[in-house]
């Protein structure tokens, strides 16, 4: 029996942009449009567990190896490949033999997003995609095309911004919430929203 990875590669053809890794570290980089179909196909081929969905923001991924104001400690040792776009979404799948408890295969499907537009939700395939997608939205602001009213999960509803984006300063203050009298919370000035002096080390 050929692996899910090889079957997907053969079936998706040009939608598989590249592949890397061996065995349990196998990764297929897909065209974003092909992701929902590929996930459904992977499930049909035996990937019964959705292990994780996560995202990486490549805004500060500096392709040339030199220091930048945001990365003063960059080592000039490496040449990094230029990221195709800002957000990369990673779906981590596993084919688990439920009888033996053995891992048949692990496969990560990656896709680069255009702007913050993510693919359609995987909730209908694996119900845990619901919370995982909520976290990706909450932390990175990636929109899943068929979930326009998606809810935050770790942050509260009034939170402004998406904290794991690279342009969200680590010491940033949030507006204080007053009594909910139906009125919108008082907006803080830009001055107040700036990172606090103690929040960032030299």
């Amino acid at each position: 029996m050929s692996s899910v990875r090889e079957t997907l590669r053969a079936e998706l053809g040009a939608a598989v942009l590249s592949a890397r890794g061996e065995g349990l570290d196998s990764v297929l980089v897909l065209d974003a449009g092909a992701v929902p179909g590929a996930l459904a196909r992977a499930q049909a081929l035996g990937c019964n567990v959705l292990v994780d969905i996560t995202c990486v923001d490549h805004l500060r991924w500096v392709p040339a190896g030199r220091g930048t104001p945001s990365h003063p400690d960059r080592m000039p040792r490496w040449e990094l490949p230029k990221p195709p776009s800002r957000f990369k979404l990673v779906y981590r799948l596993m084919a688990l033999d439920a009888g033996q408890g053995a891992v048949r295969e692990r496969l990560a499907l990656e896709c680069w997003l255009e702007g913050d537009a993510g693919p359609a939700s995987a909730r209908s395939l694996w119900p845990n995609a619901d919370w995982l997608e909520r976290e990706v939205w909450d932390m990175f602001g990636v929109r899943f095309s068929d979930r326009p009213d998606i809810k935050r999960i770790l942050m509260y509803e009034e939170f402004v911004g998406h904290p794991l984006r690279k342009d969200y300063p680590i010491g940033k203050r949030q507006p204080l919430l007053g009594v909910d009298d139906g009125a919108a919370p008082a907006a803080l000035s830009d001055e107040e929203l700036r990172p606090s002096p103690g929040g960032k080390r030299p």
Partner: protein
Amino acid sequence: MNATATQRRTYLLNMGPSHPAMHGVIRLLLELDGERVVKADAEIGYLHRAFEKQAEDDCWNNVIPYTDRLNYVSPLINNVGYCLAVEKLCGIETPERCQYLRVIASEISRVTDHLTCVGASAMELGAFTVFLYLMQAREVLYFCVDKLTGARITTSYTRIGGVKADLPEGFETMVHDAFRKVREAVRESDALLTRNRIFMDRMRGIGVLPRATALAYGVTGPLLRAAGVPYDLRRAQPYLVYDKLDFEVPVGSQGDNFDRYLVRLAEIEQGMRIVEQCLRDMPAGPVRSSDPRLLDAAEMADAGKRGETGRLSGSDADGDPTLEGTGERFKAGISAPAPDAVLPTKERAYGSIEGLMNHFELVMWGRGVTPPPGETYFAVEAGNGELGFHVVSDGSRRPYRVRVRPPCFFNMAALHTMLEGGTVADIIATFGSINMIAGELDR
């Protein structure tokens, strides 16, 4: 006045976050029909401390203390998981003795994790005695952890490429004594609970998580094993030295609260068996050096601080392998020989300019380990299941991204399927049996 027809309506009840059984960190929105739970919606995030954001702002080594705070009833497993992920990225292999030490640390933690879960969930059902017995047992294990790492909970025991220190003197005896007490406590709790009518009624057939649902929700660990799937990363993808050890993977059949309780009880025993095998089989540390120029570790460090480095070149520290001073000779057994990744011993740092520079290059702000650019995922079997670290490096001194795959997150996502259809009172039993640890759930 005419009697009006009674109208049957459901109502909404907020359980938590300030409910004692919700540990102050979970809110359940319940739609109830009388005592029946029609719909349950869990709201999480009350303990979010921005672990992943913080990790991006610190050097690779400095993330280790934050990992203690993920699953705070088994912090050592988090330390081990993070370091293994970073080592995989760097291509560092640790010495065999170090791997045994990490297994010992992980398994002691697994036992404390399960003792806490069984004890706390029994207490929430009113079995306070069991809680006291098991907490006492956990305490003697915490003494061992304290002796090994210098702290009970905030252990930070592992280092990238090694561990902080070798086993302290008398550790083996201490662990054997502790295990005797743990076995006694588990036996007593087993006698009080396992065939207890009240306990069984509250646990059997309650909070059922069938195999198919567990798999669909990505549930791992004791919950999945209780549902009959013998998936254990220590067996399925052996890491460290687990493939050399003999242990069983206990499984349940129903996937109910009672099966989870039995699986955890069995895993406590298996964890202790693993530690005993490790203590028996682990290779000895480096033998005592025959070098005549063996200096007392404290004397050597003092001489280094005074600048008498001439005396020190070529001599070796006769250290105690523990936290008091990690002798250079012991280091070969507990750390990988990767000079640009592994911290030098204190004697080396104080006694030679190379050691001092090596130390500063690794710990100063803006300095540290630089894994090659790339990303990797590594998972270990934590107390609650698959704890995965997805680490991304851009070749700089700080992690570009550290993603934690917390096992609790998936257990909590599946919680509503276990609660719906049950009664309000069952929530306490079921919620206790999934061992929600907000530190790793909310990060």
